[in-house]
């Protein structure tokens, strides 16, 4: 469960101060699939970065599963990201020199998992995202949709409490985007996976349990969707 309270974040760009978040409070329950939407510059990526421990707010608090994550040291934050969070980036962010399987089990290696364990887990998760026959292919040998599936598999391999996705379909055609969103929905329904996803595509709303719409760094609207 994520509880964010009164988050503010101001960026300084030269002499100009830009208010990205002006006091956002948000709670994401376990098993929810929450969409964060809004126009460019509305603060949706900033909010995701703060929830994902990639950035710190100027004020406010963030508690994830009871842990005050803002009080953690940098090293602890890194471990928290490794063990409790999963990320999917807009441009897949795979490591080019690694195969799909290696990209997926990399974080398991860091966790010190046994070889049989991480190979089994990674192969299974790749099979589950529909890439069972592509595990030994490198990034350059995969399509955009396949790359994003590898990124999703990587994010899920350690059973994170929360999956954070920053416009994961931005570089994909609508057909592939649909397959990725179907995959997210399935993960959410079958595994009760908590997902927070940033998007600016209206048609994505049908996949979300709840949509949080931001405008100028503030929550403009919260809408119940799929499960409403």
């Amino acid at each position, binding site marked *: 469960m994520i509880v964010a309270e009164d988050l503010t974040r101001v960026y300084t760009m030269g002499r100009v101060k830009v208010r990205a978040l002006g006091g956002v409070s948000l709670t994401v329950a376990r098993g929810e699939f929450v969409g964060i939407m809004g126009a460019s510059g509305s603060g949706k990526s900033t909010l995701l970065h703060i929830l994902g421990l990639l950035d710190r707010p100027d004020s406010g608090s963030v508690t994830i599963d009871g842990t005050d994550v803002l009080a953690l040291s940098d090293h602890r934050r890194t471990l928290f990201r490794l063990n409790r969070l999963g*990320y999917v980036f807009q441009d897949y*962010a795979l490591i080019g020199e690694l195969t799909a399987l290696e990209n997926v089990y990399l974080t398991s290696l860091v966790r010190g998992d046994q070889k049989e364990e991480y190979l089994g887990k990674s192969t299974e998760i790749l099979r589950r995202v529909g890439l069972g026959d592509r595990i030994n292919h490198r990034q350059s040998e995969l399509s955009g949709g396949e790359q994003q599936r590898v990124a999703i598999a990587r994010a899920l391999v350690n059973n994170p409490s929360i999956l954070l996705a920053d416009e994961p379909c931005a570089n994909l055609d609508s057909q592939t985007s649909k397959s990725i969103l179907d995959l997210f929905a399935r993960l959410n329904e079958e595994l009760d996976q908590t997902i927070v996803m940033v998007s600016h595509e209206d048609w994505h709303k049908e996949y979300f349990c709840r949509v949080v719409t931001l405008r100028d760094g503030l929550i403009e609207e919260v809408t119940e969707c799929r499960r409403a």
Partner: protein
Amino acid sequence: MTAVFAGLKVSAFLAWKTIERGNTGTLALTIMIIALIFVNLIFLPSIISGVVETFNTQSIDFDLGNIVVEPREGSQYIGGVTGLQKKIERVPGIIGTSPRIAVGVTLFYRGSNTASTLYGITPEDERSTTRIADFMTEGEFLANGDTDAIVMGAILAGREGEEGGGLPSLEGVMVGDSVEVAYPNDETRTYRVKGIFETQSFGVDTAAFVTGDEASEVLGLHDQASVILVKTEVDGREEGYKRELLSYGIQEEVWTFREKTGGVLDQAIQSFNIINTISTLVSLIIAVVVVFIVIFINTVNRRRQIGILKAIGIDQQIIINSYVLQVLFITAVGALAGIVLAAGMTAYLTAYPLVFPGGPVYPVVETSAVLRSIASLFAVSVLAGYIPAWQIAREDILSAIRG
């Protein structure tokens, strides 16, 4: 501990995959540069060691033996040479002694003349002490009882029509020719050239030898010598033998060959070492620059990837270590390739040695020099790899991801 090991395992995994699947051209070029730097690091020291080795060997084999016995202070000659020789040869480990009478003479041959040093020797003793007799290029070495014969070095004999270029030369003396020798006591003798030797040591190849009996007769000496050269069973233990000789009650001045040559050689070595230090520094700076640039470009190009790795929970130390391990690999392979290149270079220069005034110089690659080069190369490479990796890896995640 487990976390540290797991971290190192990931660093090694990332490093190896980058090496295995990265740009092979850049990798090969970097390794080759490191290999050449390594060769440069050990080349000059090996030549310096070779010069020292050559100088020592030439001194022992042709000029001084291992130990030199000289007259007491104030005396021009050692007296009672025969008795002294026997005394010296009783010392365990002494395998030969050769008394020499040294005299500055002027040699005349077909209208040309030159000043040089003439040694009066006992041929049999000289054979037991030096190796000049093994380096005859024409004719034969002296024999006991020769009174009208002279042997001389190839430089002193010279070549017809060629001047000595500042060195003593009779410009083309051949075996069987007669040369006239003017002694400092105004005695003049004519000798038949019995042999010509070439040791490639300038000091020896510009000298001439007659028998000790002949020199003694001309100079009016009896059982006297300017110097006694002493040959020991083992090279390198001259100090011990010297102490032993002195303990046998020898009253004359006793020197090791190093003490006799030290000043000249030490000056040369000092100059070489200055050049070597400059060369080493330049090589290491090149190594630093190359490794720094390679890793810097690598990390800058992967700035976003480094940000992503941090974002998914990979500690920055793991990322830094992966670059350090790449550098260690590059340096290790480079040093290995450098050892192969250096071995090839050593083999070539052993077959075709560099010719120095003291004789042919063969490179002597000392293990300590190789280890020092490897250690310094690793130290500077790791430092040069660590700094750019650390600079990029410690960057804020979002800044890195945004590139």
